[in-house]
């Protein structure tokens, strides 16, 4: 029996070869400390608006404890279609073009698994949300990152993508506004990318979970551009716009064939999204437009505050156009992102995620979340200022 397998040997090689999220390690360090001010939280600091929580309580009181349709409750799909129409100008049929998922994370995973064949190349921009590359790998695709730069506001343009195109390129993933950079795209940027997608027959997965948190710029979805609806999977969710992260509610909108393919995987793995979360989401989408406006206004104030504070202390930072992250450059301090974050945590008890957690091109940057109460941001900026001037 000497050649029997150890537990480690049972782990599939494409999983064992995948690095753990850098954020997890950082979380371990932060949670051991007392008195930390954390700017490393990727979720709203608001609690879900009461009328939405109350709708979930009401549903529970009335015995809403069953499965729902695999696609999600029809009432919710109608509410989603109506919201996507009025907020993004996109028309999807709730009958067969909308799929309710457990967070956008699941929708992203479903989209990848439904589309990718082994060896297909998936292009995405970096620095980016931690799960893009692993989700592509898990679907046996090949991740192809394209770096975005501070000088261009972390935008992605046609000319950035062209050099990495090959015959195997199949999918382009967009996430604007971007976690962690706060970058957004202009209509022109999107037009160029759309033309490229059509010319090279790429499918676009557009993760627009931060779209409600677009500040002064025009909000455009690539799916609304000519020729794009048929080759776009539009992903969105309620986590960021309505502060509903724990409800885990996302959705995908796409042509029927694509929704059907994603639904098959969802049906055999997740079955359906939790019914209470679906009930709460109906309330949010029907009666919650003003919640979003209020939260966006609050983030906007903090956005200006943190942007000014970081630049004043000598950490160059572009004004984020969306989401709730500032992404200052710490290159001039001579420290790596990792060392800067560690020392800031040890010396001043402020937690910011090192840019490298979001891919190698995040080196030289720091993600500072301003989904944090104003007085905490204030204190964190004071501490950071002291830290930077002592370097």
């Amino acid at each position: 029996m000497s050649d029997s397998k150890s537990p480690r040997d049972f782990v599939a090689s494409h999983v064992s070869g995948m690095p753990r999220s850098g954020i997890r390690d950082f979380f371990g360090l932060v949670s051991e400390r007392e008195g930390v001010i954390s700017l490393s939280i990727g979720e709203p600091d608001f609690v879900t608006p009461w009328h939405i929580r109350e709708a979930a309580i009401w549903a529970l009181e009335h015995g809403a404890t069953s499965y729902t349709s695999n696609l999600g409750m029809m009432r919710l799909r109608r509410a989603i279609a109506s919201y996507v129409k009025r907020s993004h100008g996109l028309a999807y049929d709730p009958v067969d073009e909308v799929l309710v998922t457990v967070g956008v994370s699941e929708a992203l995973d479903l989209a990848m698994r439904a589309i990718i064949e082994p060896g297909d190349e998936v292009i995405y921009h970096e620095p980016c949300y931690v799960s893009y590359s692993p989700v592509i790998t898990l679907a046996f695709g090949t991740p192809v990152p394209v770096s975005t730069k501070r000088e261009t506001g972390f935008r992605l343009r046609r000319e950035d993508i062209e050099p990495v195109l090959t015959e195997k390129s199949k999918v382009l993933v967009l996430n604007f506004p971007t976690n962690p950079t706060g970058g957004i795209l202009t209509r022109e940027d999107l037009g160029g990318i759309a033309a490229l997608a059509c010319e090279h027959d790429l499918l676009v997965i557009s993760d627009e979970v931060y779209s409600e948190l677009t500040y002064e710029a025009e909000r455009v979805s690539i799916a609304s551009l000519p020729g794009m609806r048929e080759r776009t999977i539009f992903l969105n969710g309620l986590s960021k716009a309505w502060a509903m992260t724990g409800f885990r509610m996302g959705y995908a909108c796409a042509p029927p064939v694509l929704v059907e393919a994603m639904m098959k995987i969802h049906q055999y793995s997740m079955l359906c999204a939790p019914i209470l979360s679906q009930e709460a989401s109906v309330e949010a989408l029907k009666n919650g437009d003003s919640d979003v406006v209020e939260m966006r206004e609050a983030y906007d104030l903090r956005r200006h505050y943190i942007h000014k504070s970081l630049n004043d202390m000598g950490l160059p930072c572009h004004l984020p156009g969306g989401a709730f992250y500032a992404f200052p450059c710490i290159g001039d301090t001579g420290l790596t992102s990792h060392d800067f974050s560690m020392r800031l945590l040890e010396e001043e008890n402020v937690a910011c995620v090192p840019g490298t957690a979001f891919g190698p091109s995040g080196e030289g940057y720091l993600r500072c979340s301003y989904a944090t109460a104003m007085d905490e941001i204030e204190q964190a900026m004071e501490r950071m200022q002291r830290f930077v001037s002592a370097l």
Partner: protein
Amino acid sequence: MDKLLKLLQENALETPENLAKMLDLSVEDVKAQIAAYEQKGIICGYRAIVNEDQLDIDKVRAVIEVKITPERGGGYDRIASRISRFEQVDSLFLMSGTYDLLVFVVGRTLHEVATFVNEQLATIAGVLSTTTHFSLKTYKDQGVLMKIEDDHERLKVTP
């Protein structure tokens, strides 16, 4: 509403420096704007919202529904203005519905409030009737919950 006013309504103690950073304005502009609001009477005052239930103080609050006879020319204004000047009156509103004025009154004792109603308010010419409700407990005042609940704690680091 102006963003500056909204911020001050949420927290009147916010410093001009912080307000300037949040609003992307200069500190001088913020100070000048606040001064202008004060001068125009748009900002009428600043005060703390206190949960008096937590303090061992003698204070009684009551709400009084008052029916009055409107006057030719002035409507309800002259009587309302007269009532509003009593120091016991904290707030006063003209209402639609089955009564005319809603008067929020504060006194040290029940007796003091009752005396005010009987001897001063009810005797004003034009006041037809009063209905007094004493307040027993405050749950929410001016948009602020009086009970501090333990908040659910978020994870310190999330993607």
